C-alpha cells in the first residue's frame, strides 16, 4: 500500500505485500523466516484449496486431487506435509474417508 503523502518517509516496501490481520492467521509459517522466499508470500500462505476456490468443501468424488494427498500406502498426508489450512484438512479428511468407503480410494495399498 503506497502512502499518498510523499512528505513522510514510509516504512512500506513495495515488494512486501500488505498483510491484513485476519488473513495472516491461516497457514502462517513461523517467524517470517520465509519472507520473500516464495513467489509471493501473500499467495503461498493460503492452502492450495483456499487459493483456488476459497472456503469450499472438498468433493470426495474428485479422486484426481485426493490421490495426490495420500501416500503410496494410501495413508493421508498430515497437514504439515500437505500444507493445508485447518479447515481444508478437516474437509479433506472427510472426503478421503468417504472415497474409501465407496471404493474410490483404498484403505491400504502396497
Amino acid at each position, binding site marked *: 500500500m503506497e502512502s499518498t503523502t510523499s512528505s513522510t518517509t514510509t516504512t512500506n516496501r513495495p515488494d512486501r505485500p500488505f498483510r491484513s490481520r485476519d488473513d495472516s492467521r491461516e497457514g502462517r509459517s513461523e517467524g517470517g523466516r520465509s519472507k520473500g522466499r516464495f513467489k509471493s508470500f501473500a499467495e503461498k500462505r493460503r492452502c492450495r484449496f483456499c487459493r483456488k476456490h476459497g472456503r469450499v468443501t472438498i468433493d470426495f468424488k474428485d479422486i484426481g486431487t485426493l490421490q495426490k494427498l495420500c501416500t503410496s500406502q494410501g495413508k493421508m498426508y498430515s497437514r504439515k506435509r500437505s500444507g493445508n489450512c485447518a479447515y481444508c484438512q478437516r474437509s479433506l479428511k472427510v472426503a478421503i474417508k*468417504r472415497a474409501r468407503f465407496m471404493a474410490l480410494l483404498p484403505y491400504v495399498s502396497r
Partner: protein
Amino acid sequence: MISNYEGLFLLDNKEAKNDWDSIQGFVNGLLQKHGAEIVRSNKWGERKLAYDIGAHKRGTYLLAYFKIDTQRLDEMKHDFNLSEKVLRYLFVRLEEIPPETATVALREDEELVLGGPEEESFGRGGRRPRFSSPPPSAASDESSDDGGDSN
C-alpha cells in the same frame, strides 16, 4: 423438511452391463417409492474398485441428485441395504443441487497413482524435506507422523 441430497450408488457390475436401464430403473424406483423428487440420475462411470467387495472387482457408479423429506431417508436406506444389486450407497446432504457442469467426472480407466510429489509445500515456510535428515532432538519436530520410517 425437504432437503437436497446427492447420492452415489455402487452397483453390481454384471447387472449394470447386462441391462443398465433396468438397474437404473430399480434405483430410481426405490427413490421415488419414498417420495424423492429426482433432479438428476446418471451413470457416473465404471471402474476398477480400489479394493474387492465380496467377489466384485469392478463396479458401476450411479450418481443421483434428489430432494426428499428427511424423515423418510432412513426407510429408504433400509431398502437399499436389503438390495443385492446396490453394493454401497452414500448420501450427502447439500445446500443446493449443483449444475451438471460442476459435477466431477469419474476417470474410468485410470490407474490410481497415490502419493504426492516431494516438492509440495511443507506448510511451514519450506523447511528441509522430512525424510532426508535424521529427526532433530529439539522440540521443533513434535510428531513424526506419516511414513513411519525409523532409521
